[in-house]
């Protein structure tokens, strides 16, 4: 295959060729980095929550008056929820998992905050809490009903002598050792025994505690004049039971109102929404850029073919076969696309590096670069395939026409 005529044809329209190469380069850089970011976001969304959020919902209650008795109200509400048909378990809670509603704090290995510590979300609940959360005990025991403390209004910060923690929290406090039975301290130097360890689940998010670090406290909240009800239902019935419960509870007690009520699925969707939107935008824009680049190559090649019919006819007249004409144009396109891919690789790596510096993303995986190069090379050539084939049908007699 003689490359000279191809190169000289290209050189006659340098700027045009460079523009296409630039397009391909930018398309490659965008494709590679966008795919990388989308991959990360999808991975983030797919991280397990440790909860069956599709079968759980939460209702937020608050008193209407200053002398609201949160404890008896919570008792009645939870009793009603537990009696509902289709409810597996219900418990009061001080934190709604997968949301920012709640609190977090630190546990210390030694008093006066000497030694190590770990931050975790605080989830106050009663003896049915673990069952409601679907949290599996892997060591130790659950709370007994007698151990649950009931906070009255004004009891903002009461001591709890024992807690249950998630695996991650246990590991953060006692890496490599068994945390069961160990004594830790809160900020007020009160000793706390770890009586149980459960499998990881996500607690409060967005306020600085690692998501799987959860400390479960035997407490029914009420100090704020408000509390949450966490409910676990039979599979597939969460929405329906939530509506029923809301309707009944809204009218059952005039001293308190429902502030909001949502399924945990809803909260998970909230958490994922930023990442999901980002992934959607990236995919859409990348697809559009690729489409425009390919259409551009297609359009330009078609145009070039129609402009150079004389040249093609001459080629055929002096003995080139149809498939030589096709190869000529494909080779011309391949050089341009190849040039674009080359520039694009540098650009992609540069952008990837800059992204990792600017946004703290991990460094670009070269695997993505390789796939990106392959994709762009293939579709770049495919885009020129049809016009090249059309070029082959130019008859040799065109060479001898003077117009």
């Amino acid at each position: 295959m003689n490359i000279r005529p191809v190169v000289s044809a290209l050189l006659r329209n340098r700027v045009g060729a460079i523009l296409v190469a630039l397009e391909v380069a930018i398309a490659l850089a965008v494709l590679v980095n966008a795919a990388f970011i989308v991959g990360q976001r999808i991975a983030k969304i797919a991280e397990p929550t440790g909860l069956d959020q599709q079968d759980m919902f939460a209702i937020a209650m608050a008193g209407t008056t200053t002398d609201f008795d949160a404890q008896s109200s919570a008792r009645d509400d939870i009793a009603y929820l537990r009696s509902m048909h289709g409810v597996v378990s219900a418990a009061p809670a001080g934190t709604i998992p997968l949301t920012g509603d709640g609190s977090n704090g630190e546990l210390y290995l030694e008093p006066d905050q000497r030694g190590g510590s770990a931050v975790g979300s605080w989830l106050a609940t009663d003896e049915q809490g673990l069952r409601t959360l679907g949290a599996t005990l892997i060591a130790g025991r659950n709370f007994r009903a007698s151990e649950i403390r009931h906070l009255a209004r004004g009891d903002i910060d009461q001591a709890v002598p024992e807690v249950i923690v998630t695996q991650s929290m246990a590991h953060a406090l006692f890496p490599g050792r068994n945390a069961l039975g160990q004594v830790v301290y809160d900020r007020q130097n009160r000793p706390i025994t770890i009586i149980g360890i459960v499998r990881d689940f996500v607690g409060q998010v967005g306020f600085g505690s690692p998501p799987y670090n959860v400390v479960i406290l035997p407490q029914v909240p009420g100090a704020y004049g408000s509390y949450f009800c966490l409910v676990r239902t039979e599979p597939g019935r969460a929405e329906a039971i939530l509506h029923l419960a809301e309707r009944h509870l809204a009218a059952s007690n005039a001293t308190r109102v429902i502030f909001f009520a949502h399924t945990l699925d809803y909260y998970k969707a909230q958490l994922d929404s930023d990442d999901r939107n980002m992934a959607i935008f990236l995919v859409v824009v990348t697809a559009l850029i690729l489409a425009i680049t390919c259409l551009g190559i297609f359009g330009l090649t078609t145009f070039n073919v129609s402009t150079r019919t004389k040249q093609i006819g001459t080629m055929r007249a002096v003995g080139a076969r149809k498939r030589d004409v096709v190869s000529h144009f494909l080779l011309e396109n391949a050089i341009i696309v190849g040039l674009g891919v080359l520039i694009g690789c540098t650009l992609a790596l540069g952008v990837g590096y800059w992204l990792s510096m600017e946004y703290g993303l991990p460094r670009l995986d070269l695997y993505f670069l390789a796939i990106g190069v392959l994709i762009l090379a293939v579709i770049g050539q495919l885009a020129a395939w049809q016009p090249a084939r059309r070029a082959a049908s130019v008859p040799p007699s065109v060479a001898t026409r003077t117009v």
Partner: protein
Amino acid sequence: MRIGYYLRLALKSLARTPGLTGLMMCAIGLGIAACIVMLTIYHAMSGNPIWWKNNVLYAVTMDSWSPGEPFDSDRPTLPPPQLNYRDATYLFQSTLAKRKAIMYPIKGVVSGAPDQRHPAPVLTRATTADFFAMFDVPFEYGGAWDAAADRTPGPVVVISREENDRLFGGADSVGRTILWNGHPFRIVGVMGGWWPKPRFYDVINGAFDKPEDVYVPFGWGPALQQLPVGMVACWSDESRSTYTAFLGSECNWIQMWVELPNAASRNRMLALMNAYAVSQRKSGRFQRPLNNRLTRVGEWLTEQGVVTNDSRLLLRLAFAFLAVSLINTAGILLAKFLRAAPTAGVRRALGATRAQIFLQHLIEVAALSLAGSALGLALGALGLRAMHWLYAINTVDNSGYQELTHFDPAGLAWALALAFLSTFAAGLYPAWRIGRMPPASYLKSQ
């Protein structure tokens, strides 16, 4: 001038290759639409909704945090964004600022309005009288309470227009009484429509949330022993088991803003804050290095990270998209014009100057730019609607992300300019290039 003639030529030329013209228009349209969508959102997110007061409004922060670690390990130079009760009430007593406001969000339940069947939960902001004048909050009826009500605190309340619609059907409810958390409160003012984006006065508890529906004087939280519902950050090891202990503790939950008209008053305020911090050191507080600040709204929004990295990234992506579209257009235009070189050659031979050839092709570029821009604006408007829908199904009820997708007239003018000028620039080189062609080579029959 032969503009009309050139325009006819341009339209004929564009119509001669409908596929390529369509491709160029679509590419430009999509590229511009992407930029418009991302720019609108980015502009809304990063804009300063009270820009006309940027030089006089200041967020007051003091670093009374734990000596062992900074408040935010990701941003270790920043003091905590909120103050504690002791420091906030002390600073509030000073008369140095022209206007001052301390505030926190609190849960409330409203009842007792006519036709109200059930008590309604409302997010409430407990603040001081100057809040409304300071932030230029519009009023439909009545106004803010006076400073005396701040002290007692008086049983007065300001409600939003939406709340007034819900409770009183939009009528003038000034002077009427409603029950807030079971206590009677007199309505002194009904706000007009107000939704600054972002909610600059409280970016900690939902930067794009709708402003609260009910406002009560600051002292009602302590008076009813009710805890705030915003972020409460505590560091010390003292006991907080009673409400009084909570008020006296090192828990930060109050935001403070001041209006200081000039540099002199600003310096005096800062000096007061520093003197206070130093004097508190005697009792063991403020053990961290002195880091008291007065921060303007613009910087505050940046420091608190209101504009996300994601939106910045998407903005840059949109520009990359536009770049691809423009390069695409330039390439196609170049090919088209060069193919028409023989015609241009004939025109030159007949006496047209280079400038006239350039102008002729520039008109074609302009026509394409206009068409592409128009398409881009239409697609951009569609895109914003799609974003609005996407945000609406994805975010919490009172979050205001969907409000960011409104296209304002200034934005429209700006977008038009961007669209037209960028497309025009893309066509400049091809038009100039065709003007430079020597006519002789194209007049030969081969």
